[in-house]
């Protein structure tokens, strides 16, 4: 038996000796543990990382050093503690990794580029193609390429991937022109061959929940009921950070489409309710009635769930302005004082940011 102690060194992970991202695409479980922790918490010391992961100080030291060299992690200023020695906080380097997210809605398509801490570096929307047009792919692919090109060339190898959020709710799919669903099916391949970056596909509501969980209001939460207010109202149950993504999905007609239908009988314009930023004009009685119906449905879903799972925290994410979400959850908390409700924090297209979070969770986190 050769003495294995003196075999050639076989490092658990050696950071690339040239600057830039490590070529190794599969990260070790321990590395993912540390990165998951840093995605959730800013400024952890090596000791805290060790305590929370159960890894030894030496293992943490090796992992952190290699991720520092790769530029995924960066050191902060030493902090003088109340007791004990000063600690050096570690955080994700915002420029360590990037990701593109695409959300295909019945109204428009959103494309974002985000950095490693979820800051939106590029955002644009494109109109959906006219039903008579055969394709909008040239326009679509140009826009995705523009998101990639928003980064300097030297940083492009740091793009972890492209996330694609696709609607699956059959009520919402009825709203898109004929032939669109068939287009969706081939999109992944088309993007991959045109842009040359790996594409991750996810249900759009689940993607939005993932986005709020990684970068938004749900970051500190472990168990909650997630609602997405779009054309319709959707929900997902999240337990222990895991988004339940089952096949039996229901949506409710108390969303923006409901409001639009109510407004169509009035003098009010309907276009502003599809705006993502700013606020709505006063929409009068129709809006109040709609909100009541929406809040009632939220409460019913919560009541139904409470028979099985004691979840009292709600996150309401939406493409609508945050002020609207705050009004809705305010009324929900009035109606049901046991509930703690939070408005989503992703103000630019939660579905697209959520889509962009997929490559990060696939490549850098413990699932």
């Amino acid at each position, binding site marked *: 038996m050769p003495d294995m102690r003196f075999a050639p060194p076989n490092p658990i992970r050696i950071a690339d000796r040239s600057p830039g991202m490590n070529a190794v695409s599969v990260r070790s479980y321990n590395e993912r543990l540390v990165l998951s922790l840093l995605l959730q918490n800013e400024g952890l010391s090596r000791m805290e990382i060790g305590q929370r992961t159960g890894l030894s100080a*030496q293992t943490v030291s*090796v992992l952190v050093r290699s991720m520092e060299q790769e530029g995924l992690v960066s050191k902060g200023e030493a902090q003088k503690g109340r007791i004990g*020695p000063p600690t050096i906080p570690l955080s994700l380097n915002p420029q360590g990794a990037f990701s593109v997210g695409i959300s295909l809605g019945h109204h428009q398509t959103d494309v974002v580029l985000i950095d490693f801490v979820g800051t939106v570096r590029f955002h644009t929307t494109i109109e959906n193609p006219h039903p008579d047009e055969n394709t909008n792919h040239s326009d679509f692919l140009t826009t995705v390429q523009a998101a990639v090109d928003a980064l300097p060339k030297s940083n492009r190898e740091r793009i972890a991937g492209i996330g694609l959020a696709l609607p699956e709710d059959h009520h919402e799919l009825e709203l898109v022109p004929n032939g669109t669903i068939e287009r969706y099916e081939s999109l992944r391949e088309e993007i991959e061959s045109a842009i040359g970056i790996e594409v991750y596909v996810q249900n759009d509501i689940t993607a939005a929940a993932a986005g709020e969980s990684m970068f938004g209001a749900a970051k500190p939460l472990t168990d909650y009921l997630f609602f997405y207010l779009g054309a319709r109202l959707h929900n997902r149950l999240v337990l222990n950070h895991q988004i339940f993504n089952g096949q039996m999905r229901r949506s409710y007609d108390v969303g923006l489409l409901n409001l639009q239908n109510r407004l169509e009988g009035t003098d009010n314009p309907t276009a502003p309710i599809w705006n993502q930023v700013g606020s709505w004009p006063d929409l009068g009685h129709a809006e109040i009635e709609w909100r009541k119906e929406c809040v009632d449905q939220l409460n019913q879903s919560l009541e139904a769930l409470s028979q099985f799972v004691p979840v009292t925290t709600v996150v309401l994410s939406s493409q609508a302005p945050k002020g609207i979400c705050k009004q809705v959850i305010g009324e929900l908390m009035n109606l049901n004082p046991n509930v703690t409700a939070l408005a989503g924090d992703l103000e630019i297209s939660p579905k697209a940011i959520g889509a962009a979070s997929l490559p990060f969770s696939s490549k850098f986190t413990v699932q």
Partner: protein
Amino acid sequence: MRSILCFGDSNTHGQMPGGTPLDRFGPEERWPGVMRRELGENWYVIEEGLSGRTTVYDDPIEGDIKNGRRYLRPCLMSHAPIDLTIIMLGTNDLKRRFQQPPSEVAMGIGCLIHDIKELAPGPIGNIPEILIVAPPPMLDDIKEWESIFSGAQEKSHKLALEFEIIADSLEVHFFDAGSVIKSDPADGFHLSREAHHTLGVVMAREVLAIGWDENV
């Protein structure tokens, strides 16, 4: 109180650039002393620097007492329990008489790491934290030492990478001293008073960054 063993060569001993092993910086000037002052009263710093010390080689000229591996075990046992062992060696292995490439010097460091792990001289028989420090590269002009070290200068630039590879694979802490200090031009491989000061301050920071559990 936590104890730190600094196991090194003339640059841990505090030998003055251009001097002899008898010309030594004072206890407060050499890097272990600076580190001790920076860390404060809860740390006990043990200095074990020997001029000419190699990682694992018996020196045919200076004698087998310069072999770091022979002395490391009794040294650890003498000072146990030890919370942290800092090893800064490698330069003497590059002497012409040993004819070793940088990767073999790193293997020698690996050997010392294995010895520490086997002996487990940490608190309650645990393995102590181990910090490998790569010495700063030698300068091209090493004065009258040229004949002894001929060819070592180029190799010395590769020690940091080789040491980091071995530290990563054996999962121990690593620091490249060459990232903060340079060798002194007086002889091209010893450290000036200022370099000792800088190294001591930075080493204290590295020691604290290990993340010590305050409850133990």
